């Protein structure tokens, strides 16, 4: 392998969005390493200014089609906080439920459709239709189940309609709740089979300890609500996120870079796993141990495994939530909370499938937004991806260019960067400078 080369991956595929990786190596030393986002910035923070309180979640849902439930949830939570709206317990449970389903959907999309081709050494899921029809069918079933459930509660799989400030515009029927329960139960055999397949997959052995940040609370595996917690030993109220999390604009990317205690941190399934392992369902813990995933894990490639473990947890916890909701009975009167307009500021923090997501709105007297700040998971991971890459490249530097490129792409994909969130995706073009 040449000592000096340059990798320029244009549009890393199978990540949701567009991103480029530029890597110049001279004499086995990294000269330049940039993970950049060349997509057009979307300016959501500007678009929000002047919009009505009931439009914010519709607008921000369009930040990302893959995690639109997360954006919608963060947005309505921020608005509810700002306007002092108390939603019902029922609303929270239903939101947690639909939240699980988006997490299943998004993690499944990533594990089965975007990462799995790497495991099988092919370029996309389409060749697998011929070679591994069983895994493709499982993938399609799991994803469809999750989407169907988001549709039942949210009204639509992409950009849900029913989740609004104050609660829901329409409730699922008892029959639909029961149907969902049956769908979840019937997913177990597919999860079991996926487990067997994943056991045979070789995950690159690579470790780099970093700061892992996620939500955490003391009653559940936190996805919808909680404090912001770091493996570096701090925990803060979600409203105070600015006391720890910093953002800066970097020239090579339209996505801002973030840092907290160190120069970079990681968010996402692996961070949640590291912070909340105890709260996983027993079943999910069992899956984790069978796949060799232990908390804390410092291998970013294990993020995919953590995602799968979360699917199992979300299925288990959904069944629990459905049972509780069925027991209590869905009540039309608890569908919507009372809403009064006032000025104020509110922060909504959730765990999007890809990690910590923060919406921060300030409202004026008329219920219009005067200021908005959005911190998106992928932005938070950029710096960490670059740090990981700096550590990864020397370990594979002896391999062929193709293998180096693949290792880099796989690392980026392991993060499941939803670049459409902030912007674009990854380009890797490899030219040998010698």
């Amino acid at each position, binding site marked *: 392998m040449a000592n000096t080369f340059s990798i320029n991956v244009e549009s890393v595929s199978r990540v949701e969005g567009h991103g480029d990786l530029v890597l110049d190596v001279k004499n086995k030393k990294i000269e330049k390493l940039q993970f950049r986002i060349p997509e*057009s*910035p*979307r300016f959501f923070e500007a678009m929000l200014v002047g919009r009505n309180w009931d439009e914010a979640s*519709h607008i921000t849902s369009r930040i990302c089609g893959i995690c639109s439930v997360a954006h919608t949830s963060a947005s309505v939570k921020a608005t509810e906080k700002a306007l002092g709206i108390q939603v019902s317990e029922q609303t929270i449970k239903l939101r947690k439920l639909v939240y699980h389903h988006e997490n299943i959907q998004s993690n499944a999309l990533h594990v089965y459709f975007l990462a799995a081709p790497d495991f099988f050494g092919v370029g996309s*899921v389409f060749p697998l239709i011929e070679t591994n029809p069983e895994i493709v069918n499982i993938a399609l079933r799991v994803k469809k189940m999750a989407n169907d459930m988001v549709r039942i509660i949210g009204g639509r799989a992409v950009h849900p*309609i*029913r989740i609004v400030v104050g609660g829901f*515009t329409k409730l699922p029927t008892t029959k639909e709740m029961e149907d969902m329960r049956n769908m979840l139960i019937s997913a177990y055999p597919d999860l079991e089979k996926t487990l067997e397949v994943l056991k045979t997959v070789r995950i690159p052995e690579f470790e780099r300890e970093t700061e892992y940040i996620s939500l955490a609370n003391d009653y559940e595996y936190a996805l919808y609500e909680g404090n912001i917690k770091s493996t570096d030993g701090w925990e803060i109220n979600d409203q105070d996120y600015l006391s720890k999390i910093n953002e800066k604009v970097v*020239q090579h990317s339209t996505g801002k870079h973030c840092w907290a205690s160190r120069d970079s941190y990681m968010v996402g399934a692996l961070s949640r796993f590291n912070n909340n392992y105890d709260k996983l369902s027993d079943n999910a813990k069992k899956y984790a141990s069978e796949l060799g995933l232990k908390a804390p894990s410092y291998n970013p490639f294990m993020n995919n495994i953590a995602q799968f473990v979360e699917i199992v947890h979300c299925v288990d916890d959904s069944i629990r939530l459905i049972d509780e909701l069925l027991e209590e009975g869905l009540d039309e009167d608890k569908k919507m909370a009372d809403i009064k307009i006032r000025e104020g500021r509110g922060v909504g923090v959730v765990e999007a499938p890809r990690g910590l997501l923060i919406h921060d709105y300030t409202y004026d007297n008329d219920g219009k937004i005067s200021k908005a700040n959005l911190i998106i998971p992928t932005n938070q991971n950029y710096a960490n991806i670059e740090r990981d890459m700096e550590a990864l490249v020397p370990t594979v530097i002896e391999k062929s260019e193709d293998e180096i490129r693949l290792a880099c792409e796989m690392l980026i994909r392991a993060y499941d960067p939803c670049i459409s969130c902030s912007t674009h995706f990854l380009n890797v073009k490899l030219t040998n400078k010698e």
Partner: protein
Amino acid sequence: MSGKPKVGIFGFTGCGGCQLEILDAEDKLVDLASAVDIVHFTEAITEHSDDYEIALVEGSISTNHDVERIKKIGSIAKIIVAIGACACTGGLNCLKNLYGVEKAKELVYGDKKDWIDAIETRPIDEYVKVDYYARGCPPNRFEILQIVKALILGKKPEIPNYPVCVECKRLGNTCVYDLGMTCMGPIARAGCEARCPSNGSGCEACRGVIDEPNVNAQKDLLAERGLTVEDIMEQFNLYNACKKLV
């Protein structure tokens, strides 16, 4: 079109939800893969090729780089289908134009604003000829498939040019006006199966408006419910700020 048509799926400035909508047609994906050759689909496939007849294009044009790319696609594809609100009308991204590109850059990126490549957001038909529109935010995956099927059969896809109220009534929905809300349904273009009203909220015209909207009647209707002129403009603008409506 003879043989399997080669299809490229491309993304511009948008949320990726439209491409996801295609992946969400789980039941039909296997059939789709056997009915057409997908040669370019960045969200799902690594390999890509510049040899395609049909381009399904998502997203709006918001950077100089976007402009170059869409023009290249326009020079290759025989048929261009715009997918989703961003591609069809510019979508929500156009709200930025109302704010002003320079001001928006400054607000979000501060003194680093000159590092950013951003132009006024435009729908793709301002740069290339679009043959068909699969509208909506997100578009309806069944409609996308229907368009693909029609193109395979060599027929003109049937895309509704009637208001959302038609679908709403076919579904037997209670009109949201009767529930105390407002709705753009009477002038908004159908094809979404009246998704918002069916889920208890007013239509926001994410598919744009019909060919001959009765805009004055819509204004009267909203004004009757106590909306101010600005409120009404905001409703019109949410997804359609790039298309001059009123």
